[in-house]
């Protein structure tokens, strides 16, 4: 603990700095492409829809199991 404060500023490496900067300014480097859109369709739409449907399904199964009227949920087709 304690001890003198030794100034130990990092000695920057230009490749590390360039990599860090490139990752930071994504708004400048990002380009729309078919590959991006495909990923968006899968991870931005398909996966959330799958989770949502599974969740609603589970609620309905529980309702019918315990003899309760089926609950209404947002964007539920039933």
């Amino acid at each position, binding site marked *: 603990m304690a001890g003198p404060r030794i100034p130990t500023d990092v000695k920057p490496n230009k490749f590390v700095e360039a990599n860090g900067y490139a990752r930071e300014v994504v708004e400048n480097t990002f380009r729309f492409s078919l590959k991006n859109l495909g990923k968006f369709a899968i991870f931005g739409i398909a*996966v959330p829809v799958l989770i949502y449907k599974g969740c609603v*399904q589970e609620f309905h199964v529980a309702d019918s199991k315990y003899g309760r009227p089926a609950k209404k949920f947002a964007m539920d087709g039933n």
Partner: protein
Amino acid sequence: MPFLSFLLLFPLVGALIIACIPSWKVRAIKIIALCISLINFVVASGLWIVFDNSTAKFQFVEHIGWLPFFNMNAYIGIDGISLFFIVLTTFLVPVCLLVGWVNISKHVKEYCLAFLILETCMLAVFCMLDLLLFYVFFESVLLPMFLIIGVWGSRARKIRAAYQFFLYTLVGSVLMLLAILLIYFQVGTTDLQVLLVSEFSERRQLLLWLAFFASFAVKVPMVPLHIWLPEAHVEAPTAGSVILAGILLKLGTYGFLRFSIPLFPEASLYFTPLIYTMSIIGIVYASLTTLRQIDLKKIIAYSSVAHMGFVTIGLFSLNVQGVEGAILLMLSHGFVASALFLCVGTLYDRTHTRLIQYYGGLVHIMPLFSFFFLVFTMGNLSLPGTSSFVGEFLILVGTFQTNTWIATLAATGMILGGAYSIWLYNRVVFGNLKPLYISMGSDVNRREFWIFVPFVLAILWMGFYPQVFLDPMHVSVSNVIQHGAYIS
């Protein structure tokens, strides 16, 4: 004794005193600000001691006529839900002042003023029992925080981050203001205690719930409304990150628990799958994103998004275990994430970089730091015996009762949490030193040591004996659940 008025006004009085002191008397300003925040913490701890655990009623209630002709009055009071947020707020503000003790060298007076005013605003949010005044203080938090990021931030992008933070949260809140107006014109008051016994039609509930959701979801933040958070954390000074992670993120989840769930029970049930889905996406995607980050602050920021996903799942499990777990996880996250940001701040003070590639083998030169960092990392990955474990476990128990599918998916978050936390610790602390980049370093100094110690104690205390925290909140949480008739 008007405890709450004292808590709210004392930092403001302190701010007034500091405003009268010349700017060059830096030491006097710092000491006064610290003493005021410490006294506030002692008073808040006193509230916890005299708090009556056996009632769900609001306690220490005070009433100030604000706009009596319009039936708007400032009611302040606390229950078992808000009690710990008040203690947490008053705990973190002196820490923030201590963090900037040496490092903040420009505009010290304004720095202390900003934190004292921010403390009043945050405490007011947790005490306010009037919807409109809640909104006023909910928004007023933005201003000092905007200044903290913009003035004392570390890099060129700080102005952009400050604007992003301000605009995201403000845009979300505009809808909430409209919803409050709608409530006012229907009920004739914005007093929470009156609103709790008022009924809204199902259609109106859905509308109001969505408007409140727009505001709270940005503040939490829930994916995909989280973009402002990593940016704000990276650019904010260490103390700013501590307050952001420790308190500001909790304002959104507190809003859900205080207003959305009890006031709009049917809408809360109707939108539960939506909340669950957004939370699961938040947990899994944010955890995976955390693995990819190279900036230390961004790693903790994204892990915060994942943890807050757990909290929202717990809140909307709409049972006692889930909600109590959510509150406990919020408190735990307030300690753990804040402490991790303090650790990053400690490293940044020495090296002036947060890029993880430069670090390695710190245990050789900073053994004490490595110990503290280990405890906080274990807290972050919810190791049994730490505070986060109790919260996450209760959330999973509560969620499992309502939806096993969601509980199963949420549990993956614990595994991913372990992965990114241990990997982070491994890269920073173990391995060989990198003298090519970082030559020498000093271990934590006395000030840093005494800042870290209370966090370690709090994390272990909550982990080993959580009952002390669960007892005061139990009746209030049960009351919220019963009020919404969520027990089926």
